[in-house]
């Protein structure tokens, strides 16, 4: 009899244990998300698509979609208050991580191409039409204005900006917006070239641009100070992003804070990138992520990149109408205005080299590329001002 009772309790224990396992709690949606995470990891390792971000995101998707007994209140899920993942996720929800990443970006970015040829700044402004084009499309697809703003910011091609903005405007779309933004940033070498060929003639692609002048140290120091004052006075709601971007750049250019600049562009940005990527990935729990809205977000996100690329290219062609022959710009640098630093500028370079093996466009494309970062932060500030 005692043996029987022991066997029964053992069986009960095993049954209880089974109810806590991932196998018992698994739903088809979990398996789909795990598959998506594995595809991310595979593509990143084999094709090197934005590896620094997509590996943490891909692995985060796996972690976030391990099924467990939510009713048991184990405090392990990312959405369970007080869990480790939830605490790390606060950096995304409260918007701490993106400004820290901007600090690192500022500390690693050389703005001299922009300072030497300031008209390239305007290309960075034109490419922001991708954000607002996507905003209009999202409204037409039935999203509310705040949701449309969160989706539109994908067109800024700037992950931290997209996360910062969507965490404020539409937190329920944060996962889809972040995954979409980073995925398309990784895919700019696939998305942009067809449109760059479509909107430029062979003659335009062969335009050689004048080498930029050498920029003095004083100008480099003035840039972050004046950049902050002029943009943040206009759009104070973009202050967390703009402030940190220009602060990081001043650390780099001042010449007296080398250690701080190295920390900002090294260990700090690496740490925050790991936390940001991992928690954004983990936030894509099947129950909150696998919805029709997410698919719509992905579709609009792709369109926003296309719109931004096209408006950047067309704006360069428009500018060329007013420029003398020796000052004309190669329209192939127009795509770089969408931000996605530095991949978009590298695409300008590789496409330029394809048509003229000695025409190096990288230094010119870096101008609109970094202007795109400023432009998208300003655009995010405007969206927050209007919609938050």
């Amino acid at each position, binding site marked *: 009899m005692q043996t029987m009772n022991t066997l029964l309790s053992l069986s009960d224990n095993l049954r209880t244990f089974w109810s806590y396992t991932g196998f018992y709690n698994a739903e088809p949606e979990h398996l789909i998300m795990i598959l998506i995470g594995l595809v991310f990891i595979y593509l990143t390792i084999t094709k090197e698509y934005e590896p620094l971000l997509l590996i943490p995101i891909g692995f985060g998707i796996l972690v976030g979609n391990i099924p467990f007994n939510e009713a048991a209140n184990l405090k392990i899920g990312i959405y369970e208050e007080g869990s480790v993942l939830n605490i790390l996720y606060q950096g995304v929800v409260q918007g701490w991580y993106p400004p820290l990443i901007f600090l690192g970006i500022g500390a690693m970015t050389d703005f001299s191409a922009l300072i030497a040829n300031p008209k390239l700044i305007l290309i960075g402004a034109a490419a922001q039409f991708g954000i607002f084009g996507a*905003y209009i499309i999202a409204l037409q697809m039935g999203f509310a204005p705040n949701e449309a703003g969160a989706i539109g910011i994908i067109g800024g091609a700037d992950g931290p900006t997209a996360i910062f903005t969507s965490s404020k405007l539409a937190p329920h779309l944060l996962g889809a917006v972040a995954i979409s933004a980073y995925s398309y940033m990784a895919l700019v070498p696939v998305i942009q070239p067809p449109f760059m060929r479509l909107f430029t003639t062979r003659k335009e692609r062969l335009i050689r641009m004048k080498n930029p002048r050498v920029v003095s140290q004083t100008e480099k120091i003035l*840039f972050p100070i*004046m950049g902050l004052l002029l*943009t943040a*006075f206009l759009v104070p709601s973009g202050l967390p992003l703009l402030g940190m971007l220009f602060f990081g750049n001043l650390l780099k250019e001042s010449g007296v804070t080398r250690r701080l600049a190295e920390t900002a562009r090294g260990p700090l940005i690496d740490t925050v990138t790991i936390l940001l990527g991992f928690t954004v990935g983990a936030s894509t729990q099947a129950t909150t992520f696998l919805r029709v809205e997410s698919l719509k977000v992905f579709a609009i996100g792709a369109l926003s990149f296309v719109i931004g690329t096209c408006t950047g290219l067309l704006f360069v062609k428009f500018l060329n109408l007013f420029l003398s022959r020796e000052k004309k710009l190669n329209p192939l640098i127009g795509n770089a205005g969408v931000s996605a630093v530095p991949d978009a500028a*590298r695409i300008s370079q590789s496409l330029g080299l394809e048509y003229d093996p000695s025409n190096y466009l990288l230094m010119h494309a870096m101008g609109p590329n970094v202007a795109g970062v*400023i*432009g998208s932060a300003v655009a995010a500030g*405007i969206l927050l001002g*209007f919609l938050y």
Partner: protein
Amino acid sequence: MRVIKQLMVYLFAMVAMLSGCSTTPENPEWVINEVMVVNENSYMDSYGQRHPWIEIYNNTARTMDIGGRYLTNDPDHPKKYAIPRGDALTNVKPHQHILFFADEMPLKGTFHLNFTLDSTKENWIGLYDNDGKTLLDEIVIPAGMQADQTFGYEKDGLKYDEEGNNTAQILDRVTPSSNNAILEENLKVKYLEENDADGGLLTITSMLVVFLGLIVLYFFFKLSGNIAKRMSQRQVAKSGTLSAVRSHSHLSGEVLAAISAAIYELKEDQHDIESTILTIQQVKRNFSPWNTKRQSLRELPR
């Protein structure tokens, strides 16, 4: 350097002008937000009794402790009721409220005052800072308030409107310890849904602002670039090098090279006077860190 200083002075003057000098009074950090003088069927205290009450609003974006400040209904006696320090409940979260009962029973706890309000006359209520001298906020409730009626501000913490008028009034809704204005939805979003359903207006406005912001940057750096170029030319001119000659003359590089070669040969005295043809071959240095192979090494995704 003088030019840069001048530029900075102009810029600061411009910013100062743009920032304007508003004369509208500012809304205080603590606002006596809503007051009930006659409480017959309204909010009860934790003892289950009804008394007049005073709601104070934290009008800032940070948690603040109201402990140590003074509440009074007598301007000649500003330290009438000292709000006890060290009570965790006196910490008021950003844009939240705290409520005191004017029941003349301070021994009941932190939130029970040692004075009451009288509906037959005008009631002045003041909140003083820790020094007992600085008046943080005051409100005057008119005489004759009806039972269960409150006097305060329609929008929490908004004491003055854009013209600087005090907006205190008898309120339509009684809302002890909660927002006077109940926001059911984001008003900005609602406005856009009603007036800009297709998003065109917001798009045009936003693109104008983005362009404006970056055009301002463009003009500034165009100007500072020109100044920097002029300064570097001056510095080169001062140094008296060949570059200095080049920067101040319109002679081509080839002509300057020929003159330099002639001077060199004359100084070294290596040749007699001969009739020769001087051929100058330009040496192009195409290398730059921007066109190194390393920059193009990343393969495009297949």
